[in-house]
């Protein structure tokens, strides 16, 4: 008669305790990885805060224009520039990117050339941002004649964001189960109505994740904007066709100054940049939550 939970068996050598302790080791390794990542993040935030929190909190830092002195004035033009760039990138790159993904996934025939397009778009996602800056310089500054203006920077950043948005949106749309589409078509619903009423709402959480990732990368980018002609000192809030700057460039310009006080200003600007990214992400996450309630 068999005993409960015994290891004696004719057919098996279960070794269950040993297998579980190996699993435990991996669990601790993964936990270590998580803690390491969190630790480095905390260290970074602590370092930034130590250097910059005081300067960040001085009145006028967020509302005044910059001065020659590191402890006077503020970074308002940089904030306005970055927010404007971010908004334009969202307004331009999201419709184009999601539209492209919808076409590739719902309308294009499954042929060899759609695979080639997909590979190329994925590759574009890895191209360094400075290359996009050169492209933007040629197309927006010169060919279209916008010159080194906010619009050129914004369109360049939109190009930068497009590949990631297309690839992640396509994944999100692909993950919508076919049974949902078939249910809709079976009821005499047209393709566009199926896509807009069923496929898109289901895919929005995934699409928004891609949007968050790309827009954060765009707002934090300096290299492409420098090539397109962003300035490092601006005394006004730029309009669409005026000279512009951005928070990463402001950070860069503070860091390169050796005089004391500028490193505090740089750290404070980093806090501002993180805050802008956090707010944008927060809005996108909120929208994603609302749509996630659908499933």
């Amino acid at each position, binding site marked *: 008669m068999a005993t409960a939970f015994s290891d004696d068996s004719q057919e098996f050598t279960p070794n269950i305790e040993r297998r579980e302790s190996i699993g435990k080791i991996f669990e601790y390794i993964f936990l270590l990885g998580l803690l390491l990542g969190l630790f480095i993040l905390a260290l970074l935030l602590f370092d930034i805060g130590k250097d910059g929190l005081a300067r960040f909190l001085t009145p006028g830092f967020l509302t005044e224009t910059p001065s020659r002195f590191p402890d006077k004035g503020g970074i308002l033009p940089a904030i306005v520039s970055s927010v404007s760039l971010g908004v334009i990138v969202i307004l331009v790159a999201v419709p184009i990117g999601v539209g492209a993904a919808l076409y590739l996934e719902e309308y294009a025939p*499954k042929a060899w050339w759609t695979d080639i397009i997909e590979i190329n778009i994925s590759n574009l996602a890895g191209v360094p941002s400075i290359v996009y800056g050169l492209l933007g310089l040629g197309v927006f500054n010169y060919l279209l004649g916008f010159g080194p203006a906010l619009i050129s920077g914004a369109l360049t950043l939109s190009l930068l964001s497009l590949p990631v948005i297309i690839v992640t949106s396509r994944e999100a749309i692909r993950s919508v189960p076919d049974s949902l589409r078939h249910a809709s078509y*079976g*009821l005499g619903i047209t393709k566009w109505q199926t896509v807009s009423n069923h496929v898109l709402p289901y895919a929005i959480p995934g699409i928004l994740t891609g949007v968050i990732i790309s827009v954060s990368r765009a707002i934090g980018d300096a290299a492409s904007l420098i090539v397109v002609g962003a300035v490092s000192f601006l005394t006004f809030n730029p309009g669409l066709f005026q000279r512009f700057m951005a928070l990463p460039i402001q950070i860069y310009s503070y860091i390169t100054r050796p005089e004391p006080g500028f490193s505090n200003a740089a750290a404070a600007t980093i806090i501002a940049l993180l805050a802008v990214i956090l707010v944008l992400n927060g809005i996108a996450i909120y929208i994603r939550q609302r749509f996630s309630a659908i499933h």
Partner: protein
Amino acid sequence: MTYNNPNKQIDNVVFDVEGVRVFYSGFMALREVYLKIPEKQIIAFIGPSGCGKSTLLRCFNRMNDLIPGAAVDGRLNYRNRNIYDPKVNSVKLRRQVGMVFQRPNPFPKSIYENIAFAPRTNGYKGNLDELVEQSLRRAAIWDEVKDKLKSKGTALSGGQQQRLCIARAIAMKPDVLLMDEPCSALDPISTRQVEELCLELKEQYTIIMVTHNMQQASRIADWTAFFNTDIDEHGKRQGKLVEFSPTEDIFSSPTTKEAAEYISGRFG
């Protein structure tokens, strides 16, 4: 070739299948079918797995168009119009030929919206609230959901979801209702309710039902089509229609040996 009982002719033909074959990525999965579907009757498609019954069912509303690599040739007339004519609009076809799928697929929306979406989009002129209630009643699920019409369709149990899908399909008041093993996920009581619904519905609609359950076919179907598989010269399985007769004939005195063997349970 169909093996129609010569004493029972078909008066009003809803679908006339003339030599339809279905290919998946170049491979002929269903051999030529000749079949006439009578109006306002319940027609059961029975047969072992892989014999092409669901494949043929999906031809009637052109859902095979949505399967990449699927190709259909032959003529399939719906009320004298070939639905595979390139000029035919498949959206219009599906408004009149509705479908209930094998696995329940309610929309991830509220129960009310599941029923109301398609009629509203198709410009339903009557009262939507009444339509929703009437459809849910006929699908034998009104009592269970009447207090939670705003809750999500996907939160229901499997059997309830399938009855919701049936309600959704009949809300569009189609001419023909295609059902692909609609009761396979249902308990016996829900199955009985769905079968009674079909018996009611056939006064207005034609119902074509794929079923694995021979007893179900003998209970409610007026006509039964028996499909079977064959191995072709390369060793691949193909489906084919073997016999199509009034149900009581096919079960009591089938014309073909294959049908006789299947029905007596010797295989399948």
